[in-house]
């Protein structure tokens, strides 16, 4: 047995970092329970007022909208991501697979601001889509894509796609292609093979992808900020506005705390549904 006592020394930097991170999260919790003093960055005595305000219809609506956008985005990302992940896993050509991988993954690394700006060019009143449609005579008036939930969702699906494809590809890589071949030998057509074999076996990835993207959209900021333009507001935008326009950090902290709790809840849901799907897979 090798002496591994040296490992303990490796722990210190990570513990330190974890402690600082915990302090940052604790700062949110602490501020969420403090009184806002208008015109000052100092906070007042402890209060429950900020948390009580969360159920104010004005703010509850933003939560509702965020969740709705998250749901739409997760569903659409699943539909767009599944074929791409399937092609990524099953394409026999290595070169094609590499190319698909680079296409699928690059948006993850170009950053939210560049991607969102690019979408402004596509969705704007003078943007690519409207120019093409106007030029072709299909529409007489520019479509309203900016400042709409549809526009925000189109860009958010693009933002979420790399993560979805990664999750689905990992799940599909575990589906043994021999099952499909066996079914084909037994006379099952391609659609039946997909519906009865590939799809059920990739269910863990589908569930985890859906919930992960749902939670992931809650962290989107630049996309709803620039494409929503104040008319489509998500929690992140509200927090920023409260913090930097009205300097109401206590209420911004309360909203952030709610967003963190919501994320934790979604992850718990993910764990729970994964366990269920796994059990179903075992019994199948």
């Amino acid at each position, binding site marked *: 047995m090798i002496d591994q006592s040296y490992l303990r020394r490796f722990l210190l930097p990570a513990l330190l970092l974890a402690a600082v991170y915990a302090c940052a999260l604790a700062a949110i919790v602490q501020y969420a329970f403090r009184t806002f003093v208008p015109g000052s960055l100092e906070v007042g005595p402890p209060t429950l007022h900020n948390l009580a305000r969360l159920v104010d219809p004005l703010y509850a609506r933003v939560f509702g909208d965020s969740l709705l956008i998250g749901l739409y985005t997760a569903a659409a990302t699943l539909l767009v991501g599944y074929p791409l992940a399937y092609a990524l896993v099953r394409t026999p050509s290595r070169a094609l697979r590499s190319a698909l991988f680079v296409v699928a993954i690059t948006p993850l690394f170009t950053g939210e*601001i560049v991607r969102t700006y690019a979408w402004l060019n596509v969705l704007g009143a003078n943007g690519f889509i409207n120019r093409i449609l106007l030029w072709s005579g299909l529409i007489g008036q520019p479509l309203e894509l900016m400042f709409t939930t549809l526009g925000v969702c189109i860009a958010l699906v693009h933002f979420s796609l790399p993560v979805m494809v990664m999750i689905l590809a990992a799940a599909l890589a575990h589906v043994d292609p021999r099952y499909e071949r066996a079914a084909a030998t037994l006379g099952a057509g391609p659609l039946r093979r997909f519906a009865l074999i590939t799809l059920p076996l990739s269910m863990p990835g589908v569930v985890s992808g859906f919930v992960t993207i749902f939670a992931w959209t809650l962290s989107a900021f630049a996309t709803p900020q620039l494409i929503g333009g104040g008319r489509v507001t998500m929690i992140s935008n509200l927090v920023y506005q409260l913090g930097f326009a009205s300097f109401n950090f206590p209420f911004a902290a309360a909203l952030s705390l709610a967003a963190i709790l919501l994320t934790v809840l979604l992850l718990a849901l993910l764990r729970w549904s994964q366990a269920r799907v796994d059990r179903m897979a075992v019994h199948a």
Partner: protein
Amino acid sequence: MSPRFLSPRLVERALRLGFALLVAAIVGYVVLPAVVVAIASLNASAILAFPPDGLSLRWYATALGYRDFQRGLVNSLIVMAIASTLAVAVGAAAALYIDRSGHRLRGLLEAVLVSPMVVPNFTIGLGFLIFAVEVGQARTFGVVVVSHVVLVLPFVLRSIYVSLRNIDRRLERAAATLGARPGRVFLEVTLPMMAPGIFAGWVFAAVLSFNEFTASLFVTARSTKTLPVAMYDYVREYADPTMAALSTLFIVTTVILVVLANRLVGLDRILTMESPR
């Protein structure tokens, strides 16, 4: 179930073609914004318009000459260099500990360090801002760097785990049997074998830190503004194609980096957590 006059082979072919077209359409959707922004960046006139009125490279000159972008680039490079290096050092040590020690709290430590992957960036940004104000570190590079380290660490941990799992532990035991002390085994056997994962983690961390926007918007001040924040400010104020030129440079650089990283270390393995056996 298909009508008789359609032979199964014909159906199979049609479906295959349909699937290929579907995938091509999805690829088109993914690539569309990049292509549109590249075309817009070449526009001669100052308004975004399709098709461009004429071709010109003047917006590239404007973008490269813009003071806020230059300062943002320098700040971003400084933050990126320090944050990614720190993240790799902390991450490699932590990954080794989590992978090898039997301590019962290691699961908790891992959960905390990986959580920034799911905790929304804006809450992390707000938390660090409030904390920095409380300890008198607001408007410093320190808070920007630390928040970036926290945000990129999950990805560093991932890529280092993969390389740790590929290590043949028998080599370490062989070195120990031959009389090497634990420190020497670590330096001469374990560390070199971790190198690909460490390198991949470092590239990952650097790219993610360079592009981080949401948390940076909260923790940066005028003097520590990073490039993505400077770009956001520009988009809010001006509508000329300068941003399109800069975005195009960004996208091209990123594609080159992703292709290179994929060649060098097989990004697909790290991202999908496929540990080859």
